[in-house]
């Protein structure tokens, strides 16, 4: 054992010496430029009047297979590919790890697909492969979770912060009948997206058309079912004149709805916000909730397929300001950095909720 340790020391000191020598020069974070990986952008310009090609091979690569939410997203893609008379394909790993998507991208390159629609598990790990795909003339559209913008042609953004904030205030206003007290039930006090939406809501409420709405309190349920339930209870006790609770979190809206539906506030206080149809169905059916919203995941896949087809047909190249038509969703304009915003969230009511399963 003693000799082993002695040898180990020798080996370690030798390696340190090598390190010391190597440390004198070389490539560091500051001196490196990592932009060489970007695919050579074709200088081709868009032809908005080009005919949409038929028989396009459009492959969807979600973060992982058998995830209920991404199943709904890709189901929309399947419908769109059918309308486009293309060939739909769905592949993906069983685990959402960073590198497991790369083998699938490589396979899709080999199979000479025309479009890859990908929700990146890691914006950078998929980059070299996606750029290889683009060099092989495959168009790359990201959805749900963006890949680094150097390695995809377009990104389908489900909703903007502004769009969500506006939509929440609009629903609250309708439910309050244009005047009265409202409260917000959020997640945690430092949740970035929640705070951004609440900020937009406050700006909206300052507009003259909402002058009769009064935001009395923002409560925090920490995205915990029980805490959210108690906070909803607390809001109703402290503000007896409260007309609407707006909860922009799926946990909060479900907990608040459960409280109201089982109390004598049912029918007097309205709940709205962002929720999942499957969680909210019973409260919509029993009349506690008249209306809530969320982006429609099926539309994300649908729009991604049309964007991919427009790219592959040469109608767009991914530059800001280019326009294309996405079937039933209508016309879209590409924003900065190849972003395409789906639009205002879908509103769910007793009339349409049974069409959604997610």
């Amino acid at each position: 054992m003693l000799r082993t340790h002695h040898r180990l020391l020798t080996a370690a000191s030798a390696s340190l010496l090598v390190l010391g020598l190597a440390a004198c020069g070389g490539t560091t974070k500051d001196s490196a430029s990592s932009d060489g990986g970007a695919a050579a952008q074709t200088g081709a310009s868009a032809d908005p009047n080009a005919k949409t090609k038929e028989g396009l091979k459009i492959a969807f690569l979600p973060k992982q297979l058998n995830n209920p939410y991404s199943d709904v997203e890709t189901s929309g893609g399947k419908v769109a590919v059918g309308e486009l008379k293309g060939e739909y394909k769905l592949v993906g790993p069983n685990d959402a790890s960073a590198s497991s998507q790369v083998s699938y991208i490589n396979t899709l390159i080999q199979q000479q697909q025309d479009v890859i629609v990908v929700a990146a598990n890691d914006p950078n790990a998929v980059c070299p492969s996606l750029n290889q795909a683009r060099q092989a003339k495959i168009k790359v559209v990201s959805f749900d979770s963006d890949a680094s913008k150097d390695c995809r042609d377009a990104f389908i953004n489900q909703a903007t912060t502004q769009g969500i904030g506006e939509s929440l205030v609009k629903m609250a206003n309708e439910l309050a009948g244009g005047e009265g007290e409202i409260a917000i039930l959020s997640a945690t006090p430092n949740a970035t997206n929640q705070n951004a939406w609440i900020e937009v809501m406050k700006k909206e409420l300052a507009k003259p058309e909402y002058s009769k709405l009064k935001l009395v309190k923002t409560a925090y349920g920490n995205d915990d079912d029980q805490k959210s339930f108690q906070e909803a209870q607390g809001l109703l006790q402290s503000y007896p004149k409260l007309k609407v609770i707006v909860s922009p979190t799926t946990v909060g809206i479900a907990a608040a709805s459960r409280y109201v539906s089982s109390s004598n506030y049912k029918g007097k206080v309205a709940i709205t916000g962002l929720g999942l149809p499957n969680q909210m169905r019973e409260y919509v059916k029993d009349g506690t909730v008249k209306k809530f919203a969320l982006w429609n995941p099926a539309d994300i896949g649908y729009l991604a397929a049309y964007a991919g087809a427009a790219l592959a047909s040469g109608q767009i190249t991914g530059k800001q300001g280019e326009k294309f038509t996405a079937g039933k969703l209508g016309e879209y304009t590409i924003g900065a950095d190849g972003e395409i915003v789906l639009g205002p969230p879908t509103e769910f009511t007793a009339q349409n909720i049974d069409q959604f399963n997610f």
Partner: protein
Amino acid sequence: MSEVRRRLASWDSIIIALTVLVLVVASVGVPNFGTSRNFTFLVLDLMPIVLVALPMTFIIVTGEIDLSVASTLGLTSSLMGWFWNNGLSIETIIPLCVLVGAMLGAFNGFLVTGLGLPSLAVTIGTLALYRGLAFVVLGDGAVADFPWNYTGWVTGTIGGGAVPNVLILIVALALIFGVVLHATPFGRSLYAIGANAQAAHFSGIRVARTKFWLYVASGAIAGLVGVLWTLRYSSARADNGSGLELAVVAAVLLGGVSIFGGRGTLPGVLAGVVLLAALQNALRLQDVSGQALNIVTGALLVLSVLLPNVASSIRATWHRRRLRQAAAS
């Protein structure tokens, strides 16, 4: 003659034949399998498995195991990102990561040989420990801005042709490990240790010291693969390579190495790695789903353990029957 028959019937020659068969059938029958680009993808996919399998073969031949390799990979990948963020040059980081890997391996080796703990328990422990440390270093974040000349080298091919750059590294290391295992006294001593560690000890083989250095080698290679993995995906992350240890052990066993030690060859292991990777690649090109892929790999592994056992028990029965016939006549 009986030597020829024995070699023909041995499991590693069956696996080598099966691998060649799968490669030929896939090249002919699966569209886009036999292209040069697919060859590059195939080599890149099997690179981490084949490199880690080299020292793993040595360790399993001595009757031990190292399940911490994938976590060592994850920890060196995390450290690589951390070093890079702290301004170290990539030329320093790469040897440093290999050294860290070797030290993590030495810790395993010390627990197994110095304290005499069972390697299965030790390396399951360090599997969790090293992965946990990886998350301490980098958390859920990722470091991605590694220099293009390095990331591009790992994914690139020689002169832009069909031969991936990393293939040189794989071939060189496989040759070194192959020669050491099959053509040196040290290599022979590993089989002796695996067959009977006590007998090996009494015949003058330094069992503990040998095993210790095998764990160091295993850690160093895992560290090197951590670097290559990070550069290939341009992404240093704590969860890199998770689950890789199972793919490696599966390939080594499929290649005919006995889990109880003392038996197996490196060509068999290389064939095992290529067989698993080629099969997955070909089935994926045929749009076979991920779950079905797992089923195929799992079934293959069970068969690889089952068939040699069945074959040897049939042979034993035959042998007994012939002895009885000889005694009766």
